[in-house]
């Protein structure tokens, strides 16, 4: 009964989404207030209905209702509750329901908090949101129904892939999807602006918080996925340039560019047409990510050809939305008035540079990810594009960007003074250089580029601090004046500084751990000791242990450093009973210096165990930096200006004054 309620709610939600798509659009066209007013309640109702479906599916999972095929395939009685819940989105059908739930949540949020939006804009935005929801609900109902019943119901399910039974991965998809789907807001606003044929700074002020929120979630989602890969996959890697990682990284790069161009648009009314295009591109990349992951095209082009129903459907959705949006853009964008002028050396100019490099960067990732697929589909030739290719094409684009980041916030709007900005950054540059020289001097091994990378990270952090120092006039004004300025500084300034510093932290983490990780591959018998990075590990032996739904063999290592006991490490190999497959659980000892990381392997012929030990210096900085970026976004989002939203000015017609200069 519960499953049928969920199924019915999904179909109702589809009907409501279609209404939400059609009526407000007509209303906005013929300026009928009543038709336009349908949009808000429809968006809210649609959210409630999708939420009912989602809760129904979750109930089936939590109560282990194996008469529902989806539950039977992806759950089991003995599974801990957390993974029964995360099992809901740990499969294709359930994850699509989560996708639509988040989409509906964003729509309902606009309906609820968008009271001060111009009616026409609001109606158009919600209509576009409704159309996306309708497409994906149709997809779920026709090809990916999670509520199909089994008769007779089996006694126990097949369980969830053990590798997914992990706390970080339980929450990774919701964050990732919130990021993906959140960009639909920017997309809907862009389409609404194109339909309207006008756009102003208030538009950017509305779009920015939504984009920022989506970007924050995507940042955290990607970081969580990378952290999970680091400790679960058993060799300490954190980024693999895997097509699926790329699928989430491309929207992140485009979304980052969008955040920055939206600033220009809000503050200076410039880059309008580009910002609109970027909003379309960002969500298109999100859609493409969904297609890549959901269609099965990545496993192999052939797998896609064998069961193409889902893939073709998502491809069609993609084609309609991306093609339609770009066509609309080509048709209507020339109508949009151009905004303020600016010199190449200016804050706007620096943000154009940011956009140039980020856009080329995602284009590089895009080509590298899709080229092998396209080549195989067209010619049948198979090639591989892996980490060496991406490192080679991505790094030259990202390095100049990182060097340029601290300059941006120090340049004035309209016309900036590069020399003055450089002078202000002298201290930061000296600090970065000093660190570089110091690292070079003490370096014993590792690539010569690594000290440069560290210097770059320090440069980013010091550059972010420099901007704050000058904005509060720390060394010019009296202490009380500086303090007053510090408190009155808009939160978005702190947000920017935090996010840029976070980027620097990530850079240092990546460079140090890549350049100076140490590794030992050993065959150890109980009683043996091993040395790595100043630690001594004594191997005490392997014992069996029983978990809630798995058996494991746990190795015990006693870790000492300079004769003093530091910790015990217990890497293990798990065998999941129901799923009949296993995982390796690394034993990790985190410290500020870095992570000591031990992995237990198979028993060899002579009774010894194959053991891998790693020391990953400063590796935590990667995720700490990502977290700092997330916090920077949150601080910026709490800025009064964004919280209050667009002022009444949005109601008046957009000024069409060309060139203020």
């Amino acid at each position, binding site marked *: 009964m519960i499953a049928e309620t969920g199924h019915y709610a999904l179909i109702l939600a589809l009907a409501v989404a279609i209404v939400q798509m059609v009526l407000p659009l007509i209303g906005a066209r013929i300026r009928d207030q009543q038709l336009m007013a349908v949009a808000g309640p429809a968006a809210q109702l649609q959210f409630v209905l999708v939420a009912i479906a989602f809760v129904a599916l979750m109930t089936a999972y939590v109560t282990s209702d194996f008469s529902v095929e989806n539950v039977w395939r992806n759950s089991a009685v003995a599974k801990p509750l957390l993974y029964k819940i995360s099992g809901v989105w740990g499969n294709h059908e359930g994850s699509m329901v989560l996708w639509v739930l988040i989409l509906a949540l964003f729509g309902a949020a606009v309906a609820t908090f968008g009271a001060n939006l111009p009616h026409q804009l609001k109606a158009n935005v919600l209509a576009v949101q409704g159309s996306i929801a309708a497409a994906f609900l149709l997809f779920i109902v026709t090809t990916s129904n999670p509520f199909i019943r089994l008769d007779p119901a089996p006694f126990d399910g097949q369980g969830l892939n053990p590798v997914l039974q992990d706390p970080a991965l339980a929450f990774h998809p919701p964050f990732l999807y919130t990021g993906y789907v959140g960009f639909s807001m920017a997309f809907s606003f862009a389409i609404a602006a194109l339909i309207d044929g006008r756009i102003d700074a208030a538009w950017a002020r509305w779009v920015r918080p939504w984009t920022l929120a989506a970007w924050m979630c995507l940042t955290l989602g990607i970081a969580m*996925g990378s952290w999970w890969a680091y400790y679960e*996959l058993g060799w300490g890697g954190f980024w693999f340039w895997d*097509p*699926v990682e790329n*699928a989430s990284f491309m929207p992140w790069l485009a979304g980052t560019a969008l955040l920055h161009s939206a600033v220009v648009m809000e503050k200076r009314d410039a880059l309008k047409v580009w910002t609109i295009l970027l909003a379309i591109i960002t969500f298109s990349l999100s859609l493409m990510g969904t297609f890549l992951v959901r269609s099965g095209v990545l496993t192999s082009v052939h797998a896609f050809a064998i069961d193409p129903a889902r893939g073709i459907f998502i491809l069609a959705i993609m084609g309609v939305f991306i093609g339609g949006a770009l066509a609309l853009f080509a048709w209507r964008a020339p109508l949009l008035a151009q905004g303020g002028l600016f010199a190449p050396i200016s804050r706007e100019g620096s943000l154009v540079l940011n956009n*140039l490099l980020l856009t080329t960067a995602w284009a590089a990732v895009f080509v590298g990810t899709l*080229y092998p697929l396209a080549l195989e589909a067209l010619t049948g030739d198979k*090639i591989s594009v892996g980490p060496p290719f991406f490192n080679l094409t991505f790094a030259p684009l990202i390095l100049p960007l990182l060097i340029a980041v601290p300059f941006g916030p120090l340049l004035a709007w309209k016309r900036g003074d590069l020399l003055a900005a450089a002078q202000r950054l002298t201290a930061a540059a000296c600090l970065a250089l000093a660190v570089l020289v110091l690292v070079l001097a003490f370096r014993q091994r590792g690539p010569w580029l690594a000290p440069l990378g560290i210097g770059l990270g320090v440069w980013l952090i010091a550059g972010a601090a420099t901007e704050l120092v000058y904005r509060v006039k720390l060394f010019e004004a009296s202490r009380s004046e500086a303090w007053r300025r510090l408190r009155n500084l808009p939160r978005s300034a702190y947000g920017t500084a935090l996010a840029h510093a976070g980027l620097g932290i990530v850079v240092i983490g990546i460079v140090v751990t890549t350049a100076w990780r140490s590794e030992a591959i050993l065959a150890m018998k109980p009683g043996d000791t091993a040395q790595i990075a100043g630690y001594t590990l004594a191997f005490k032996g392997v014992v069996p242990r029983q978990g809630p739904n798995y058996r494991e063999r746990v190795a015990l290592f006693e870790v000492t450093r300079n004769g003093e006991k530091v910790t015990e490490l217990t890497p293990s190999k798990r065998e999941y009973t129901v799923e009949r497959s296993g995982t390796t659980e690394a034993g990790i000892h985190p410290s500020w210096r870095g992570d000591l990381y031990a992995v237990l*392997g198979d028993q*060899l012929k002579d009774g010894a165990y194959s053991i891998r030990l790693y020391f990953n210096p400063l590796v935590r900085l990667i995720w700490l930096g990502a977290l700092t970026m997330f916090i920077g976004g949150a601080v910026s989002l709490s800025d009064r200006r964004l919280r209050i939203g667009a002022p009444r000015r949005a109601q008046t017609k957009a000024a069409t004054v060309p060139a203020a200069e």
Partner: protein
Amino acid sequence: MRFRRSPLVLFLAMGLLAALPAHAVEPDEVLQDPALEARAREISEGLRCLVCQNQSIDDSGAPLAKDLRLLVRERLKAGDSNQQIVDFIVARYGEFVLLKPRFETLTLVLWLATPAVFLAAILIIALAFRRRRAEAQNPAPLSIAEKRRLKRLLGEG
């Protein structure tokens, strides 16, 4: 077999592949000479494990990857150069084995696309700057509607 995959690939591949953990480079494979071993690792990182998803033979626990790792080490001990070894393996397994494709007709677009996008973007930005500056110097004449509006504003002012 052990497949290194990112979380979402796992969602995708769930039920299709069972991820059984095993090790990549095993203790008995490691060469005595650290310099040779370092070269072996460097070569291995650029070679794809043919039965895995986007994973190098250095990270993979698949038996085929192990065979390839041993092959690389054998050739190293026989005194081959890195390039000779890579050529040897490509001759046996095809271009698919290279994680960084060679620059040739088939991969022309792959390698040139990024620089092309970069140059095109710079060109577009430069043209936009020039056009905007020209427009600012010679503003377009007022349209009829604008003239009417100007008249009205002046009249009211």
